[in-house]
């Protein structure tokens, strides 16, 4: 678990990132920081489930395809545990057909890599301010 606490903004909401791709885990926290969020990253679902962030995270940025427990698996698991964390799915896949199903099942957004910083910000805002 990587937890970055921004001293200037103690009140910053925590966004958790679960992705097996290291590039994502390295680059996203900096962007999130620039966007005014705190971030903690995990390389797999199981790691996240065991962490403290499970309770603190206001939003979960979740990769779909991962070794072991996949993104949707984690989503179901959280639902079972009663953890209602808004989820933004990200995927390197080009299969757009997965998106409607994921949204239907409660995901805030599904972003296809590579996505822009504004697309991400828009999705996070949506997560923080549900309709």
């Amino acid at each position, binding site marked *: 678990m990587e937890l970055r606490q921004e001293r200037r903004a103690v009140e910053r909401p925590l966004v958790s990132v679960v992705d*097996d*791709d290291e*590039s*994502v885990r*390295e*680059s*996203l926290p*900096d*962007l999130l920081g*620039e*966007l005014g969020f705190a971030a903690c990253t995990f390389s797999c679902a199981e790691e996240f489930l065991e962490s403290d962030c499970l309770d603190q995270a206001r939003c979960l940025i979740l990769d779909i*395809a*991962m*070794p*072991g427990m*996949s993104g949707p698996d984690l989503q179901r698991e959280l639902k079972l545990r009663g953890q209602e964390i808004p989820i933004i799915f*990200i995927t*390197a*896949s*080009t*299969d757009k057909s997965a998106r409607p199903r994921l949204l239907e099942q409660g995901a805030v957004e599904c972003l*296809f*890599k*590579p*996505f*822009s*910083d504004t697309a991400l910000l828009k999705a996070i805002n949506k997560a923080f301010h549900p309709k």
Partner: protein
Amino acid sequence: MEVQSEHASGEIKHLQRCINDLISLLALPAIWSGGDPSQVLHTLLDALVRMLRLDLVSVRLTDLVGGAPVEIVRLAELRGRVPSAHEICEALSQCLEDDSRKWPPLLRHLMGEGEVSIVPLPLGLQGELGVIVAAAERTDFPRQTEALLLSVAANQASIGLQEARLLSHQKRLASELDQRVVQRTAELATANEELKKEFAERRLVEERLGQEERDLKRSEIRKAAIVDSALDCIVTIDHEGYITEFNPAAEHTFGYLREEVLGKHLADVIIPPSLREKHEQGYARYLATGEAQVLGKRIELTAVRADGSEFPIELAVTRIPLEGPPSFTGHLRDITERKRAEQELRRSQAFLAEAQHLSRTGSFSWRVATDEITWSEQLYRIFQIDRDARVTFELICTRIHPEDLSVFQEHIERSRRDRTDVQLEFRLQMPDGAVKYVHVAAHIRGDHGQPEYIGAVQDVTERRSSEEALSKARSELSQVARVTSLGVLTASIAHEVNQPLSGIITNAGTCLRMLAADPPNVEGARETVRRTIRDGNRAADVISRLRALYGKKEPTIESVDLNEATREVLALSLSELQRNRVIVQQELVDDLPLVAGDRVQLQQVILNLLRNASDAMSTIDDRPRDLLIRTEPDDDDRVRLSVSDVGIGFEPQATDKLFEAFYTTKDEGMGIGLSVSRSIIERHHGRLWAMPNSGPGVTFSFSVPCKVEGLTSDSARDSRTPSVSDAA
């Protein structure tokens, strides 16, 4: 008185002398006995001259034994002169007539100086024997006693002569008889000889006849035996068409007993009703004109058995060369079997011809010693050579494609020399320029003296075209497979590329924001740029790997480290495998020998096996989706790579089908992957196979040689070499 007594005593003396003479004369026949007439006459004349003191006595015999008359004369010493015999005979013939009865008892005849008394005495009763003439100069001649003596002498002479004559005659007769006997004997001997000869000849003839008869009899027996034991039916008919002989074969064939048909009309027995009229017409014509349509020929016609069934026969009719009314022998043979065999042969020939035609295969024979070549009809058709042409190598060579001619001739020479079996494929060029591919297979037959090649020539032009078409199709298919594979792998490719791209874009966005801050976060920006560069390289790597996998078209032979190749494939597909929740385990043995081959093609095969394994486990949820990929040295200087899954497996009977094109167990698969994979491995002189695991799932393995001798760059560059892998 004295005179008287003197006279008396003289008389007595005279009479005594006369009696003595008479007795002498009477004794003469005893002297004459057995003598001939001349002897009789000589003694008689001598006796008369002496007794009667005659001057002349002569005798003339008329005809003794049919010969000339004989005259004998005795003369006493006449006085002073002696008359010649001739003179006496003339005197006698003047005074004596032919008839002795008219002769005088005494006549006086002047002869010489005096007169003589002549007494003729006939010999025989009428002088038929001759005459005796006694003459004396004495005048008292003949005294009474003298006349008596003369007549007795004549009588005695007649008797003697008769006897002598008879004797002579008898002698002659006896001689004649003897002579005749001798002659007859000789004749008889001759006749006997002739008879003997004739008898011998006859015996010879008889013997010959006997031999001939025996021969004839033997011949008859032999003929009978031949007729009886002949396989052919032998039926003999007389001039009216009635059966005179019907041998056992005929009995057997026609179902009649000999006794049943003897004397019956042939037409009624063995000629079917439909042909009877024709038969009788023909027979009648022959008898009338001697013109026969069937004699001396073999003809085939239909005969009928006792049970009414008809069957084909072959018939040869000959006329029996005997005198008298004509009779005939018919040799008949049931040719049902032969007909059937002929028909079958014809059908078999038709089959063969049709088969040759359909399979475009001609057959030939070639006698090596004489270069005698025989072709089947189809072969003429394949070579487009006139059916009547005599096949020679010169002729054949005119049809061989110029580029293949030397190879063809080389093969012929080698076959001629080595006499080994031949397998050869070459091209023909037809007069119109069309090219044909033919395949020749021939094997040698026959002893060393007369070796002969028997072979088949198949026109494989169509197959060749098909093969070329197939090869093209396969090439196209592999292209399709590659494209399809690309399509299917798009997600995977995109995934691999999108990951670093995502990092790049995120980093770039972050960088801009950091630089736009007040104060700009330069340190942070530098970090993000560093990460951007790293992700950019990462993306470039992915692209280059993809290009290696799909971009290269020309296969190249190089030394390939299968471990390394496997790792590259895994790097490309690992994320996809992970997304499919496949747990990949690697057992790549250290120091694996290098193999010679096309790295990309081998990687396509590995990728295909990985994808198949992944797909086979896509529905497995009750157990970990374990995939094991391993490499190891194999026997015979080979390297083996295996991919095991725990998937749904396949039906055992489907093992053979797995590698066929278009066979698939997947809903979305095209079934090309394994087929193409196998052809790739086979081009590497390797083997690809599948084995069910002892537990769930299947293990696919391939094994390739470390040094591939046969895989030259030429064959590797063959455009037909399939590339690529699966179409899932």
